[in-house]
């Protein structure tokens, strides 16, 4: 029998809220998203399928959602993993330039509502290209910096 100390865990508030969000997700999963099984409730992997009639139709991408101990007072860290979609607001290291993930986060939002925002961001794209400052940004993030430490300046709200 092992009696070692568990690793850093969510606050009880966060644990309770995530449990409810997961239950709600399982009852009503947002269209186009699939929650992939992981060993950790604090780290969700979500499969995204591009919406029909858009540039990303039927393409599969993976989001990684990492919940901080103080969730929902603090936003989750959301990035694309594996091959991030080509999009003017998505960097090649998976970081997403989307205000609700940073400055505009509010505890009224949920993983589901974030997913919807990301899908609508993908759907409204008119060209598959990287942000203009992609190389510089990705170089600056090489030491594994979290996108939450970036001082974002949100390009526009058209895409």
């Amino acid at each position, binding site marked *: *029998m092992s*009696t070692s*100390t568990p690793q850093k865990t969510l606050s*009880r508030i966060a644990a309770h809220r995530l449990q409810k969000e997961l239950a709600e997700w399982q009852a009503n999963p947002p269209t186009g998203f699939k929650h992939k099984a*992981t*060993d950790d409730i604090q780290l969700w992997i979500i499969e995204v399928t591009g919406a029909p009639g858009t540039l990303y139709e039927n393409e599969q991408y993976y989001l990684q959602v990492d919940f901080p101990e103080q969730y*929902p007072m603090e936003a989750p860290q959301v990035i694309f993993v594996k091959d991030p979609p080509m999009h003017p607001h998505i960097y090649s290291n998976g970081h997403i330039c989307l205000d609700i993930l940073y400055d505009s986060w509010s505890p*009224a939002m949920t993983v589901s509502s974030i997913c919807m925002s990301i899908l609508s961001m993908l759907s409204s794209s008119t060209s598959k290209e990287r942000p203009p400052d992609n190389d510089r940004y990705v170089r600056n993030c090489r030491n594994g910096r979290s996108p939450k430490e970036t001082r974002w300046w949100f390009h526009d709200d058209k895409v």
Partner: protein
Amino acid sequence: MSEDDSTVLPLNVDFTAFHVFFSLQGKEYSFNLHNVPSPKDAGTMSLRDAKMQCEPQLQALFRGFEHVLQQRLSQSTDVAAFVLEVKDILERIIRAQANCVLLPDSFYSLLFSEIEDIGWEHISFIGDDATALQFRIFDIVGREHSVRVDLQPGYPDKVPTISADLPKALELNWWSGAGLKHILSQCRKAIDSFQDFWTVMEDIDRKAWVLEPVHPSRAISFRRIALGGHCSLSITVDALSPRTLPEYRFFGSENSVAPLRMRVINNLNRWKMDMLLLENLESVLELVIPSRQDIGNEDSSADCGICYAYFIPNAYVTGSDPCGEASRPDRVCENLNCGRTFHGACLVEWLRSLTTTRQSFDVLFGHCPYCSHPIAVKNSI
């Protein structure tokens, strides 16, 4: 025995690892359980191979009892059962520190002759040294009541203390020569006097959506019931006169609650003493009080919009009363179209994390996380 308030949180979607929080005698503990057989694997449902990881405090308490835990693990068929075992073991470990001293023989011979007299069928529990007893009493409609009797060392000269699940404390009438059978008959009488109170309360519990208390006991005359549309009503029923207008208070945004308050005042003449309390409330408020099924689980309008709980998960409220006034969602967004409710503490925590929040004296001014309507909350919750 404490009520079971443990939280079992799955750590993965296969349900093979869990994080368990529980509290015992006012203290919180937690542990992790790994390698639990997945519910998908039919057949052996035993936690035999599961691994338990304890926080240091708990680990220290269990030192020397690891083999007992291991044995209980292999006997438990699911996590919930194991949590109960863990609490049971911990309770025994804590209690074992207090010694058990037996009383003189004369005490026991008197006690057992008294029990013979009233009949063993009325006793549902006897403590280790027989100074604590529990009576089981059935009332006229068949409700089962438990009354705990604690005998003092000088019994029968010293008055025993009794605790029963009654809305008003029972004052024991005691004289020299009184014994267990007199306690029993006084308890019966008290129980009979609250029959109408329980009829009224059970009607509420059955038909309305009771937000509080979560597990109403027969002693509790307080209820908070959902009215729908982010409003709720709390009432304290008079146990001796349960069909009169109770003390009441509305919760919700001022816009939706003010008309309800007016209706109570204007419609008081409709109150009929021969109707049940809930029927009277419906007639006075001119609305149908919704049941849990009517509102449905998705519209958890009563829960805090930040932490999604009704009672605040005990993290920043560390006072002596974790389920007290401050731990309920009592802050309401005054925007009529929003009306979300929050715990004061959650709202403070959120507003403090924003640079746009202003503070004047002890009040934080910010915006509702849902609709951005201005909202204010006292900082010192």
